[in-house]
């Protein structure tokens, strides 16, 4: 009897250790970013020399970085808006109407998740070249919408399935047409999903390197700019400072998106956002 209990406790300890190791493996490398971004040395090596914020000041003063950041914000915002709008329409169609071959549609739109980005990037580049569309931030947006659609649809379909279909019927019954029903009932109820989708697709676009690298032409997005900076060893600490900031911003956005998405999943509860 005693042996059995002790055995169980030992097993628990083993799993606990494994969990700690797993989390450390995931997050310790990431922690080096902020640590070395405050280290007063151009060399990325222990022991730490001293605390400084000069890398942050230097990085903020860099006009190339500012332009790249602004480019990334623009691409991210357009990507988020377009993919969320398309995702909302697709989610509405797939959850509310009998669409022939809806399973196939769903499968094809999630395909970009499984196709390597480098393959997508190259094929888009070939396509754009062959139809003579010049590379720009817009072509990056096109590529990013492609890879963001699966995320937008996953979030929005689950949100749309989460509320009673007869709510929309009730609106029609009370005299509103399809368009006004969308704005007075569907959209307010889907709003938490819409916000979550905007945030999620923005982050996916903001972090994306490969497709942007192929499609950006002469305008650099932030990941491309960072990649370029890595050629200069003395710029590395500044890149680390930038990376640390992006890391924090990404975490905040993802947590916020998850929180919004979980709001009002009970179809009888009103979403507190936008109500």
């Amino acid at each position, binding site marked *: 009897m005693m042996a059995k209990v002790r055995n169980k406790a030992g097993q628990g300890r083993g799993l606990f250790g494994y969990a700690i190791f797993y989390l450390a493996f995931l997050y310790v490398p990431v922690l080096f970013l902020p640590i070395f971004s405050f280290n007063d040395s151009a060399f990325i090596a222990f022991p730490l020399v001293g605390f400084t914020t000069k890398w942050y000041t230097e990085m903020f003063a860099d006009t190339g970085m500012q332009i790249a950041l602004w480019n990334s914000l623009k691409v991210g915002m357009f990507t988020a808006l377009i993919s969320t709008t398309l995702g909302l329409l697709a989610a509405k169609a797939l959850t509310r109407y009998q669409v022939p071959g809806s399973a196939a549609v769903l499968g094809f739109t999630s395909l970009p998740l499984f196709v390597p980005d480098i393959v997508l990037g190259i094929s888009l580049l070939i396509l754009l070249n062959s139809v003579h569309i010049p590379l720009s931030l817009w072509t990056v947006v096109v590529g990013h919408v492609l890879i963001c659609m699966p995320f937008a649809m996953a979030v929005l379909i689950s949100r749309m399935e989460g509320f009673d279909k007869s709510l929309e019927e*009730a609106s029609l019954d*009370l005299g509103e047409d399809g368009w006004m029903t969308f704005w007075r009932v569907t959209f307010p*109820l889907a709003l938490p999903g819409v916000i979550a989708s905007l945030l999620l697709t923005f982050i996916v676009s903001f972090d994306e390197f490969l497709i942007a690298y192929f499609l950006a032409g002469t305008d650099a997005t932030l990941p491309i700019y960072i990649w370029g900076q890595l050629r200069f060893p003395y710029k590395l600490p500044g890149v680390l400072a930038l990376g640390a900031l992006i890391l924090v911003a990404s975490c905040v956005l993802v947590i916020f998106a998850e929180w919004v998405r979980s709001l009002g999943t009970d179809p009888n509860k009103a979403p507190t956002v936008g109500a």
Partner: protein
Amino acid sequence: MTDAFIKIDHVSKRFGGFAAVDDANIDIQRGEFFSLLGPSGCGKTTLLRMIAGFEYPTEGAIYIDGQDESDVPPNKRPTNMVFQSYAIFPHLNVFDNIAYGLRRLRLPKREMTARVNEALAMIKLEGYGKRRGDQLSGGQRQRVALARALVNRPKVLLLDEPLGALDKRLREAMQIELRQLQRNVGITFVFVTHDQEEALSMSDRIAVMSAGKILQVAEPRTLYEAPNCREVADFIGTMNFFDAKVASHENGAAILDAGPIGKVRAAGENLPDVGTPVLVAVRPEKITLSTTPREGAIKGTVDAAAYLGERSHFHVRVDGIATPVAIASQNVMRSGDAVSHGATVFLSWPDDAAVILPRE
């Protein structure tokens, strides 16, 4: 086109090869409380949704107040609906839920407020305007759904099993309230239910449906006392059936030869020809049970007895008949009809109790 306020004219609805509603013909009068009654899956909700405009008939037409509404979308129809789930908008409060249909009309604010408050008073929920949908009980949600529909002053109110989600006591209270409300507002109600008692107690007339077909349209009393087929008789209340054959006609009644239970007399219109195989149907409460033999009574043995307070139920086995005969008797005396399991009893019923039904 027609005198009926709602005319359902040879309406069928097919999903693929399956006929959810099969050639339905119903005339509903203005101001009537009309029920569609049937087991789940019989097509009653599909028919209601076709009147509302959520489904379009595959064949046939639906007229409301003389207008052909068959292809008109729900937002253009003079109908409003109370949904089974009530469909209270969770992002709006009670006031805005009720005002939903009025906002579209761009009424002056004062008039709209007056109409919503009037509706709140009608459902006895004054002062609940600021409450959110999820802060209401089931009965309150049901009332809000009712007010939200009636505030638009529809020509027809459609109700899809609106009392199904309520507990028994509340449901019975709402049945009475709903009936009174209908009399007060004078609007035509079309009410879908699978609960036969609910339909009998509330409706002016009832259409009984089964497997997409309308079996009988009649007043509650007629449905119960003079069903037109075995299915209707069986679905509404309990019924005893005996196989029989028409032996002769006599003074507007048929004398039926019912084999093991002997000759049965049954009156009725359109009596079937002599020699036609028929069913004789008798309600359990029409049968008198006695412990002493009497002229023409059927002899049997008590198989089961259940005491239910104001009445008792018995199952009596009769030689030559497979199904025991069901009998319900009022316990008029405090001693009750003290017959117990195994007792020999004698069954009889008045001449007008037996109903002749076609044998399928």
